[in-house]
């Protein structure tokens, strides 16, 4: 009995010491995961994911409290980047391919109140007080904040127009509906 207790204890202690030594020798610095994730996210702080800005979303992703499909403006690109970073598998075919959208001003409804201009996180809306506003498409992330802010419903999200430069072949149809 005593031999058993003694030998097990000794064994445990020896192994514990060895492991303790090893863990010191092989210590790893805390990882900069949150920052890396934040670099992947769009950074427009639109809040559509439900977290306070992209930093909050990155923290939640790093803690595993949020799905990697949380970012609507990011689309598939962000999902696949997050999937690679976090080692979470996701079927990209299931991620709805969002049409690229931009906000458009309906000029006959715009009253030039500048509310949209003030909320736009990327300064994509041009105009001054009492003047009709316009959206600078290249800077618009389709976050929708201006749509909410507009008092006259002059702003709405529309699919971005397809040009010769942005057109490409559609995906061939699946041959069977499984």
């Amino acid at each position: 009995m005593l031999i058993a207790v003694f030998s097990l204890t000794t064994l445990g202690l020896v192994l514990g010491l060895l492991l303790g030594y090893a863990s010191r020798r092989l210590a790893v610095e805390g990882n900069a995961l949150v920052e890396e994730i934040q670099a992947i996210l769009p950074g427009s702080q639109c809040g559509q994911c439900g977290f306070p800005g992209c930093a909050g979303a990155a923290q939640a992703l790093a803690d595993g409290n949020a799905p990697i499909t949380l970012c609507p403006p990011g689309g598939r690109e962000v999902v696949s980047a997050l999937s690679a970073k976090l080692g979470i598998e996701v079927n990209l075919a299931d991620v709805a391919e969002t049409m690229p959208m931009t906000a458009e001003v309906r000029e006959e409804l715009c009253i030039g109140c500048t509310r949209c201009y003030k909320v736009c996180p990327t300064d994509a809306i041009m105009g001054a007080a009492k003047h009709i506003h316009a959206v600078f498409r290249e800077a618009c992330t389709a976050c929708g904040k201006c749509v909410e802010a507009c008092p006259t419903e002059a702003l709405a999200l529309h699919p971005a127009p397809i040009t010769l430069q942005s057109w490409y072949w559609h995906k061939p149809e699946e041959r069977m509906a499984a």
Partner: protein
Amino acid sequence: MNLLNRFQPRGGVHPAGRKDLSADRPIRALPLPERLFVPLQQHVGAAATPVVAVGDQVLKGQLIAAGQGTISAPVHAPTSGRVVALGDYAAPHPSGLPVPTLTLESDGEDRWSDAAIPADPFALAPDEIARRVGAAGIVGLGGAAFPSAVKLNISRKSGVDTLIINGGECEPYLTCDDRLMREQAEGIVAGIRLIHHAVGTQRALVGIEDNKPEAIAAMRAAALGTDIQVVAVPAMYPMGWDKQLTRALIGKEVPAGGRSADIGVLVHNVATAYAVHQAVALGRPLVSRIVTVSGGAVKTPCNLEVPIGTPAQDLFDYCGGFTAPPARLVMGGPMMGHELPATHIPVVKGTSGVLALTHAEIGRPEPAPCIRCSTCVRACPVGLLPLEMATRIRAADLDAAIGLGLKDCIACGSCSYVCPAHIPLVHYFNYAKGELSARERAKLKQEATKKLADDRSARMERIAREREEAAARRRAAKEAAEAAKKAAEVTA
């Protein structure tokens, strides 16, 4: 073993040539159409900017749109007449989306503008030849439509020593280069010598597929007494792919992602060489090209010299119309050309043919499951695994497809052509390439908007801070004033 192997073309297919339809038809000039629709972008690079206004009278060969930027090409009036419109018109592009196009109404006179013709074009400085080629709006006429002057300049600067002239014309049906070589061999040889002179190459090779013996004979006769070598290469598709031809002729491969100039080679098409001769020796800019009109549904297939901007309908009309309603209209060859959404779409500099094909010729039944027979692997001239790439693209795993070499794919269509399961392999690859460049654009945009967002939040912070400071100052001032007031009251 390697040396022997290198000269052997890799992969490739042998589609039914169907060149007999039009190979024996001499080139004829298409009667002048009433209206010409000249797109401002017919080349790789930046679109040209118009230099004429609606209502202007122009002469044939007059500059109507100037190239802008380093990679671009100017556009010239294909005939004399009046500019009647400048606006969007359907483009010769699979999307059928409109592009800025100049519409020209012919005055029927077809009067050339005056041009300075050098007494001896070979006395011109190499720089000057390249400049004239650029000013004539010449682009690669094999279909790539890359501005030729840019290629000349790059090649001269990087010390290219071998000039290869591509007379492959491996696409079925097309006979425009074949006819041009048979009828204008002198002009082509003169053009080759000009390029030779402009770049300072040490040797010039003309590669012609061995299924065009007449063209080979004509070119050999014309090249007699020059240092131009005319070489017969085995007929196979895609022998006209410049890199395949390079390997077949000199046994070297262009590095992936690199240019022909990297291995000291410059490749031009025979029609481009001819256009160079026309431009430099005769002062005629590129305003027309040879187009093959063919296909089972065309009454009399033929080879036509067509002014740039002529609607495809005029070509079919001249060839006697259709014998049967065509199942598909194609611009270019059947392997790499694209479907014409409508017949009012114009011929451009890169158009080598317009085809009206019957159902029997298209022959594409419903796709079946892939049986991994790897016929496509054997057919691929690049050495890719089309079946593996397509399954990954179908599963939306584009990164895996890139890993398998998607970016090396030249979309030649060999794999789709031979696939017994009729899987649209090239369609998958072109979709994936488009999707990738869309992602690339989205990424660039995301970076730009992120910076905007950061700038804005920094600005907002600054404004808030300034406002706070201002408020603090106001408060301090107010307190000071009140204190002073109190002090005054006390003293009073």
